[in-house]
């Protein structure tokens, strides 16, 4: 039996201290301990980007991250993207306006990647957007509408 340890995280601005085992993956702590099921478990092997969350402002794959290894981190999941009053982020609005969501499974990862990109490059070119999303797979949209949606957020 592994000893559990308490990790201190700020998740979507909220201070939490889940008790986790050494082999607990961040994706499962988010989904099962914190009930934040917006983060998806998809391929489980770091190939599809579906489990992407921002750790200290940078996108990482939560299915390949040990929760204990990010002790002290500031984490943003899809649940923290909309404003506290429930109004959507401009990226989320753009995804709706452009029909960039079909089954929706890849959407949380796509939106977090878009947040990361726009934070560093407020008006990215189409090429830059496609480059940035290279690690995020979508089996429905053919990417076109996702790229358009993100492009429309540029100034």
């Amino acid at each position, binding site marked *: *039996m592994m000893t559990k340890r308490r990790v201190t995280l700020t998740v979507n601005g909220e201070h939490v201290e889940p008790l986790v085992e*050494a082999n607990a993956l961040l994706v499962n702590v988010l989904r099962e301990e914190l009930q934040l099921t917006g983060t998806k478990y998809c391929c489980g*092997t770091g190939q599809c980007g579906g489990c992407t969350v921002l750790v200290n402002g940078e*996108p990482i794959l939560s299915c390949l991250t040990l929760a204990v*290894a990010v002790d002290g981190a500031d984490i943003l999941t899809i649940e923290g993207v909309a404003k506290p009053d429930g109004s959507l982020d401009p990226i989320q609005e753009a995804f709706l306006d452009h029909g960039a969501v079909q089954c929706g499974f890849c959407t949380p990862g796509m939106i977090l990647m878009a947040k990361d990109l726009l934070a560093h490059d407020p008006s990215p070119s189409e090429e830059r957007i496609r480059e940035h999303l290279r690690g995020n797979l979508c089996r429905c949209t053919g990417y076109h509408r996702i790229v358009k949606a993100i492009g429309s957020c540029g100034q």
Partner: protein
Amino acid sequence: MGNTRILTREFEYVAPETMPELLALLDRYGPAATIIAGGTDVVPQLKYEKISPDYLIDVTKIAELRTVRRDGALHIGAAVRLRDVKAYCRDNETYACLGDALGSIGQAQVVNMGTLGGNICTASPAADSALALLVLEARVRLIGSGGERVVPLDAFFRGPKMTGMEPGEVMAEIQVPAVVDHTGSAFRKIGRVAGDISKISCAVAVQSDGERCLSCRIGMGAVGPTPMRMPGVEQLLSGRAIDAGVMDEAADRIAADISPLTDVRSTEFYRRRVSRVLFKDTFDQAWKRVQR
């Protein structure tokens, strides 16, 4: 087969903050310990039950392993993230082939998580950064409780997933010697899709006077048990004026000297055929980058 949703293996996680603490842990736990940095390789290996450690030692909290410094040579701490090395290469064109290699990894998330030392210690014959470092004549500094040693990268790789690292040793840094003047370098790979693991890769560093190749270093990846230097072709090109005929000769020699296999990613036939043009394109790009 393993389970990709959870880790079924039970282990203790330790994250030392200093090198002496790390070395003491490696001595105490011996083969029961596995070192983890970014986790992009170790965690899938745990999921597929390729490794079964009792202790996982996270080296990313050790400040010494997370720094980049320059004193003629470039010293990159083994746990410096690929993202930071990539940013450094973007600002310093001298290491263009390393920048190309890190750029070809593709997934921003993996570049944020993975470390340069991790990419090397994994010792994949297809490792992108390792091939670029090979033609930059990089060395690795290894530290164990018995002392430390510096090993040239081409002597470090022993076979697929095998390195010259002794039990109890840890990689402290990667040293890239200063690049001599009038040198250009490039890395290219062929994968099924952008960002995929290489079917075949090539790195070239060439020193030229504008007409002749004064010296060069050529590496080929995923065509043998380790990333390989191509000494025969390096000799063939050194001192020669570069024209289409010489390049054809060199490309034939590349195709003859590599020893590719047929595996899940490609075939021996394809790899040998495509090696010629991949080498020519990479050499051409390195040549164009020579600063005059």
